[in-house]
């Protein structure tokens, strides 16, 4: 089976075949979660910041149609050219047309999860445009011909030895050398040459300010700025939900974003693009691609508050032990699992079930998205829409009938605790997934109900 047809459980099973690697992946991400804890505990206002950010985003969602038009007008006033794309295809076409009009065949791109969602690279390559990802992690997965496994740490699943081998093959580094300093310096030289020679640059957008028409891009590497300030044309792709009302609200979001993401107090660069350079162009593409539909789903619209910090992935005990690729979606982890079913409920029917509903994701979320509650609600919606496996439907029906009847419950219970034949841990055989790596609880002589009848 290919990745295309395997579900989360099967992909996670593959990932778990190498337990040392799972431990390494888990420890690395847990370390980032600990850095986050350390950073947030330095701010006594942390919970107030989260409440405020969440309330600002509530306001944004409730007034989005107005803010988008305000942003458009202010940005146009500043000399920025605005495009609108209802879906991924339109977004990709706009980018291609902009490049074609200038006769550009090569583009440098900084991190944009939206372009991953739209599969822009693939589309441009099919149209003979070369795209080079400039974020180091993204460049690494691009060389490996893989999607990013994490929205902030694209190659967190790769060991340095694997990266050393990739660089040896593609960038001519010494075989066997996997020193991060050496590999990073090689990438710096390689990508400097790219930055200097590319006439077009594409970036994502972290925040777009309705009040001023400016947009903010956050990076640690400086790759967005190196691309944008050296190119003739800067294309910035943003989802409609990236709007925030006023410039001063950046104070709230920039305090939250990186502390949540990596435990840094702020990214190295928080760049505010307001006007293009003389005789150069800035284009902003405002993309819907299912977001307006999600806005209409009362139970799920809060997912649009996401500022893409990745904290929910770092804290998720399932993500840490299944890897980002097991979510088979551009955005992985808990937030990916509540965003993806909106785009394709059948394809992503498995994702809301890839969770124990432990709730840690909701607690680290800087904009207080009720992620685990939405996972629960998506499960109901997915089943109601007919995307549950038939065997599961039958088992649940039988369980429901038994548990709805004290008579059936007690008679099946007496017959060797059979009530729990629906419960996986009750069947002692090798075909039972419980028993594969866990023992059964020892059946007691009598149930509590039987004991109570005799003793009270």
């Amino acid at each position, binding site marked *: 089976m290919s990745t295309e047809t395997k579900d989360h459980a099967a992909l996670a099973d593959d990932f778990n075949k190498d337990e040392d690697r799972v431990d390494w992946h888990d420890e690395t991400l847990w370390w980032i979660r600990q850095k986050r804890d350390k950073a947030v505990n330095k701010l006594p206002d942390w919970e107030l910041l989260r409440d405020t950010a969440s309330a600002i985003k509530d306001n944004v969602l409730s007034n989005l149609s107005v803010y988008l038009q305000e942003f458009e007008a202010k940005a146009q006033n500043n000399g920025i050219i605005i495009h609108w794309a209802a879906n991924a295809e339109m977004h990709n076409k706009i980018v291609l047309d902009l490049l074609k009009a200038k006769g550009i065949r090569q583009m440098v791109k900084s991190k944009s999860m939206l372009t991953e969602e739209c599969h822009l690279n693939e589309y441009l390559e099919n149209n003979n445009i070369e795209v080079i990802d400039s974020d180091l992690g993204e460049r690494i997965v691009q060389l490996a011909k893989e999607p990013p496994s994490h929205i902030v740490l694209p190659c967190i699943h790769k060991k340095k030895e694997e990266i050393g081998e990739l660089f040896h093959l593609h960038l001519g580094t010494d075989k066997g050398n996997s020193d991060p300093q050496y590999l990073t310096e090689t990438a710096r030289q390689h990508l400097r040459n790219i930055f200097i020679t590319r006439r077009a640059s594409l970036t994502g957008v972290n925040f777009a300010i309705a009040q001023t028409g400016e947009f903010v891009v956050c990076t640690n590497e400086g790759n967005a700025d190196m691309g944008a300030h050296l190119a003739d044309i800067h294309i910035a792709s943003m989802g409609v939900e990236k709007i925030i009302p006023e410039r001063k609200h950046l104070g709230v979001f920039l305090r939250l974003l990186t502390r949540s993401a990596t435990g840094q107090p702020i990214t190295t660069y928080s760049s505010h693009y307001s006007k293009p350079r003389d005789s150069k162009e800035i284009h902003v593409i405002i993309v819907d691609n299912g977001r307006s539909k999600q806005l209409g789903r009362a139970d799920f619209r809060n997912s649009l508050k996401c500022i893409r910090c990745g904290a929910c992935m770092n804290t998720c005990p*399932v993500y840490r032990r299944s890897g980002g690729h097991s979510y088979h979606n551009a955005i992985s982890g808990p937030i990916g699992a509540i965003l993806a079913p909106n785009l394709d409920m059948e394809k992503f029917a498995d994702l809301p079930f890839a969770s124990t509903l432990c709730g840690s994701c909701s607690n680290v979320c800087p904009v207080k998205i009720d992620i685990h509650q939405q996972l629960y609600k998506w499960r109901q919606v997915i089943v109601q829409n007919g995307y549950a496996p038939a065997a599961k439907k039958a088992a649940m029906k039988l369980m429901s009938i038994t*548990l709805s009847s004290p008579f059936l419950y007690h008679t099946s219970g007496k017959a060797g605790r059979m009530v729990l034949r629906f419960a996986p841990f009750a069947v002692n055989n090798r075909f039972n997934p419980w028993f594969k790596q866990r023992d059964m609880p020892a059946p007691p002589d009598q149930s509590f109900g039987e004991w109570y009848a005799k003793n009270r």
Partner: protein
Amino acid sequence: MKVGLFIPCYVDQFYPGAAIATLQLLEKLGVDVSYPKNQTCCGQPMANSGFAHLTGGCDKLFTESFRHFDYIVAPSGSCVLHIKEHLHSTENADDAASIRNKIYELSSFLTDILQVESLPARFPFKVGVHQSCHGQRGLYLSQMSELVAPGFSKPGKLLNMVEGIDIVQLNRPDECCGFGGTFCVAEEAVSVKMGKDRVEDHLSHGAEYITGVDMSCLMHMEGILRRQGSKVKVIHLAEILNSYQ
């Protein structure tokens, strides 16, 4: 004060000891407690699997069984959270609403309603405390490590009343054990790995017992401990609070 004892189905069938300890502990504290015999299950296994629409029968039974009590107490954070968040009854809407407010997980009933300040308990062993997610993050039984807020723990407060007990510190005090209801079989590989890692945290700190407010998490960890041939045992919080060893 009339208290209805709610014993989750898997506790009734597999861990009667935890249920008996809960009953005896409440009786010891002078509570008028009884066990309605027609109860079965809160309906969570169906609901968490996406089949909340099949829980009508469970909801009806539950509401009928427990509507007349002043409080309902259960030795489980997870099942109580499910009732609090999802119990609905079209026939008895008011009763269901009232039950959602007066149902308590055992440790919070002891600390918040009975306001227990001392217990005649002795348990001279090294014990690791597992924070069950639904009790902790759902019912706020303990402070959560993700938040910037003062610490507290209701089960911890009760365990501190137990003579001779030695609570071990953990590297990850509130990480999920990976049980997760049907997750434990649907996502077998990750579930087991989470359970192994959780158990290892307790073992490496010398725990002789692992305790918690939810038997389901403990059952999962027990399955792993026994497969590993470990001598370490799981024990419900009620059994420690009810023991004098």
